[in-house]
């Protein structure tokens, strides 16, 4: 008598409760910890903050505050999502467990569906509980925290956690072993950013022309670094298109998971990687990263030696290769694979070829003028490394869009390429030059040359272009947007607060600046301004010759000399000079020491400093007089400045009556 018809068959259903129960129990305690940490990191912290805020008069809890605070929970949640992915698929890492599961009468896609369901539930349920607690808090205790904000947080958290979960799940099918799985998740999430940072740093140390404004070149990489995306959108602006893109990526990952699982070979369970090509690629890439890390580190501290840098790169590659093999083989006694080693060597060679060719091309290629919208050339070390925020300033800030300026910039770029050193080696006689192109396709290309001699043809050309007119584009107050709700506006050096209406007043008196002699306007009477709002802090330069500044001085309880940071104790000199001598004078002022300048020019010591101060405060400025006051505090200068330091590093100039 056969089995079968005489016995009652068990009911079939879409979900296998025993399987669900098994997977759920595997992650139960971890999920409980996640729930507890969720409650601590958000509802509890908010409650404590609320209790303290009345006493200590802290910032009110509102949507922005809440979302920024939730970034801690995001880190916890993303870590949890990665961990449950590892735990749920751990059966694939063990031969006995894998054999047992795949001998059961259930299809792989059904096993996978059960696991995904358990994973999603483990993410959603604790978030839902936390959201309910937050909702009750908002109704009972926190007026400015709306239910819609909590709902937004809930949906956004599901999104971020699920994306990480899908990454964890998919990567698990490529390796066998929890430790390897963790490594692969970290690599997928962070290796692109780490590698790009290392490539860029190495380029910066190797090629003159590479800009130190890394942030201009890192945004695409940050967009693919999901943990950064997840947190950044809470503290900065929400990017809907990027969010949708990542949601689509997560869906694709889930689909890929089903496909990869379908073709997964169970017999490879005892191998560290299911696909040897993946192992070879990862070893090659991480070896390149390690090579760059050590090489860059050594090159940074030991300049002038290409040989030592090369040794450092070779040693870095070798050490990294061994360490990564140890990690991937989960053993310090590694099996050497000639194939893997060969692939790594070839990768390194190809990398260096591409690296050298592409960076050379990037630096040497001058954009076509048809593609350039505006350009900026600066040699001022104080402003060069600032990164103006788009919504703080007008688009034209620091950039010129006229045809002549663009042509000049291209010409300077070509000459700089010809005159620069290669590789980039420190030159104590050099002056920094930064050339930025805003291209019509929306990109910005910035080049920074640090090896050009201060008396090179490039510097000469820049000087010629710079002082053709007053540089309106470089005036901070002229280019600030009027509608900024500023928290502070102050003179940067003296911290004297300025009236926030100064921005519009300054712009209204713009015409006074246009008639200034360019050398006087650009090289003298400069005041460093700082401004901040709720999310930005910016500094820049403006002109004391704008009457709005002087009007502001009169209205407030400080003097012009307070703004200028000059008093009787300042070291002061006077010089009378013809307009035709401005070019040479300011060139020397920016390149040689004051003591040497005294040999060239009739620079006189000020005998009656208090009188000079009094005259200044008594409307003593006159940009057209040809009489210059040179002042400064050399004894308070930075330690690395000495008698040979260019005068402009220590002193300032103002044109007086």
């Amino acid at each position, binding site marked *: 008598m056969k089995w079968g018809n005489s016995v009652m068959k068990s009911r079939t259903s879409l979900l296998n409760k025993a399987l669900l129960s098994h997977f759920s129990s595997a992650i139960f305690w971890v999920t409980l910890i996640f729930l507890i940490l969720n409650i601590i990191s958000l509802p509890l912290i908010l409650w404590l903050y609320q209790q303290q805020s009345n006493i200590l008069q802290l910032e009110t809890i509102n949507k922005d505050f809440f979302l920024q605070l939730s970034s801690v929970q995001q880190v916890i949640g993303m870590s949890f999502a990665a961990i449950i992915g590892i735990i749920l698929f751990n059966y694939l890492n063990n031969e*006995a467990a894998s054999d047992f599961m795949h*001998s059961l*009468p259930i299809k792989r896609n059904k096993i996978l569906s059960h696991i995904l369901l358990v994973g999603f539930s483990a993410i959603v349920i604790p978030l839902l509980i936390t959201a309910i607690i937050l909702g009750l808090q908002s109704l009972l205790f926190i007026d400015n925290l709306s239910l819609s904000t909590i709902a937004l947080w809930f949906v956004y958290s599901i999104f971020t956690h699920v994306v990480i979960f899908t990454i964890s799940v998919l990567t698990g099918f490529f390796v066998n072993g929890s430790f390897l799985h963790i490594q692969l998740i970290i690599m997928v999430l962070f290796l692109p950013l780490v590698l790009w940072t290392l490539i860029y740093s190495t380029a910066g140390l190797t090629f003159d022309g590479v800009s130190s404004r890394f942030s201009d070149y890192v945004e695409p990489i940050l967009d693919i670094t999901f943990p950064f995306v997840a947190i950044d959108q809470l503290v900065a602006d929400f990017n809907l298109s990027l969010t949708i893109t990542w949601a689509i990526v997560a869906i694709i990952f889930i689909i890929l998971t089903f496909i990869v699982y379908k073709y997964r070979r169970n017999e490879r369970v005892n191998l560290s990687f299911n696909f040897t090509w993946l192992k070879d690629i990862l070893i090659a890439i991480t070896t390149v990263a390690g090579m760059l890390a050590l090489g860059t580190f050594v090159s940074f501290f030991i300049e002038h030696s290409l040989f030592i840098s090369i040794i450092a790169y070779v040693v870095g590659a070798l050490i990294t290769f061994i360490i990564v093999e140890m990690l991937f083989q989960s053993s310090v006694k590694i099996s050497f694979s000639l194939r893997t080693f060969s692939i790594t060597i070839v990768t390194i060679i190809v990398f260096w070829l591409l690296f050298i060719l592409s960076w050379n091309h990037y630096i040497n290629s001058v954009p076509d003028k048809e593609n350039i919208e505006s350009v900026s050339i600066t040699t001022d070390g104080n402003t060069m490394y600032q990164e103006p925020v788009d919504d703080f300033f007008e688009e034209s800030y620091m950039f010129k869009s006229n045809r002549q300026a663009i042509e000049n910039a291209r010409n300077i770029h070509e000459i700089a390429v010809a005159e620069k050193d290669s590789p980039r080696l420190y030159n104590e006689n050099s002056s920094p030059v930064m050339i930025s192109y805003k291209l019509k396709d929306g990109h910005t290309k910035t080049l920074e040359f640090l090896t050009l001699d201060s008396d090179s043809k490039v510097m000469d050309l820049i000087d010629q272009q710079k002082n053709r007119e007053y540089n309106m584009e470089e005036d901070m107050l002229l280019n600030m947007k009027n509608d900024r709700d500023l928290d502070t506006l102050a003179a940067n050096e003296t911290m004297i607060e300025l009236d926030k209406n100064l921005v519009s007043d300054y712009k209204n008196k713009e015409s006074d600046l246009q008639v200034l002699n360019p050398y006087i306007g650009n090289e003298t009477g400069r005041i460093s301004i700082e401004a901040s709002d709720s999310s930005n802090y910016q500094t820049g330069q403006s002109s004391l010759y704008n009457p709005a500044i002087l009007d502001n001085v009169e209205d407030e309880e400080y003097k012009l000399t307070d703004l200028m940071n000059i008093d009787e104790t300042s070291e002061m000199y006077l010089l009378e000079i013809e307009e035709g001598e401005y070019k040479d004078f300011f060139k020397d002022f920016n390149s040689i020491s004051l003591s040497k300048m005294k040999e060239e020019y009739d620079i006189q010591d000020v005998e009656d400093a208090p009188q000079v101060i009094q005259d200044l405060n008594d409307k003593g400025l006159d940009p057209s007089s040809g009489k210059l006051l040179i002042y400064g505090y050399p004894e308070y200068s930075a330690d690395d400045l000495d008698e040979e330091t260019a005068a402009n590093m220590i002193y300032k100039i103002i044109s007086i009556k």
Partner: protein
Amino acid sequence: MKVVVDATSKEFGKVLATDNINLEIKPATVHGLLGSNGAGKTTLMKIMSGIYKADQGMVTYDGKNIYESPEVKKDVVFLHDIPFFFRGSSLKKMAKLYQSMYSNWSTERFNQLSKHFGLSPDVQLSQLSKGMKRQASFILAFAARPKVMLLDEPFDGLDPIIRKQVKNIMMQDIANHGMTVIASSHNLREMEDLCDSVSIMHQGKLLFNQDLSDIRGNHCKLQIAFKTLPDDDFYKQLNVVHSSQRGRIITCIIKGDISKIEEKVTKYHPLMYDILPLTLEEIFTYEMGELGYEISNIIVE
């Protein structure tokens, strides 16, 4: 359920673990899969249980491919040589899983077997000895009432009494319910009493596949004493495939039609003779010798 292994091959990198295996197992029989370590037995078992996908060929049960086929797998239970249970599980918990997976599951039988083997359903399986874990895996397998049971080194760790009990239950299910059993082992002596048919694997190849009754029907061992030793004609007439001599006593293995052996033997006027049963090992020794393989190299006790 008829099990057919059709030209099945499986590679692990450069190693050919199974090479063009062709095998047909009759329903309601016990088939022994023999071979030394690394012969490819477990690989073949895993292909037959649907864990591995064959690189070439396929394994079918009543004409249906088992790989990724729950309809077939619900009637096939595979017992690995090392029993596996979910971490922290009890026998009862594993039973729930089996119940949800195997449509022929019988809770009544599960309870009977648990009681019979003296295993509490609530006991944590991780705390059991190796032998008791194997008992637990048999309980679950028998309670699932499969049509085909695949056993990899089934009796390893079981004491003789339990071993006998398991064999008895197995035989009952084969006889009463037509269950088919395929058991792999490197122990010829163990398989001898159990199997209806056997295959021998070596280095991935199937060297030999035959019913034991056919083998035994074609072979016998003759021990014969002569006053005067016979000439070569004796060996030819009797179709002796192997012989050994001690003094005037000859021990020989005879292959072929053994029904007229006595008639042929008496022609040579022996002092005395005896027809003895052959062990599986002895049969294979000579069969494999014919194929050019040294049995001692193949099957390790």
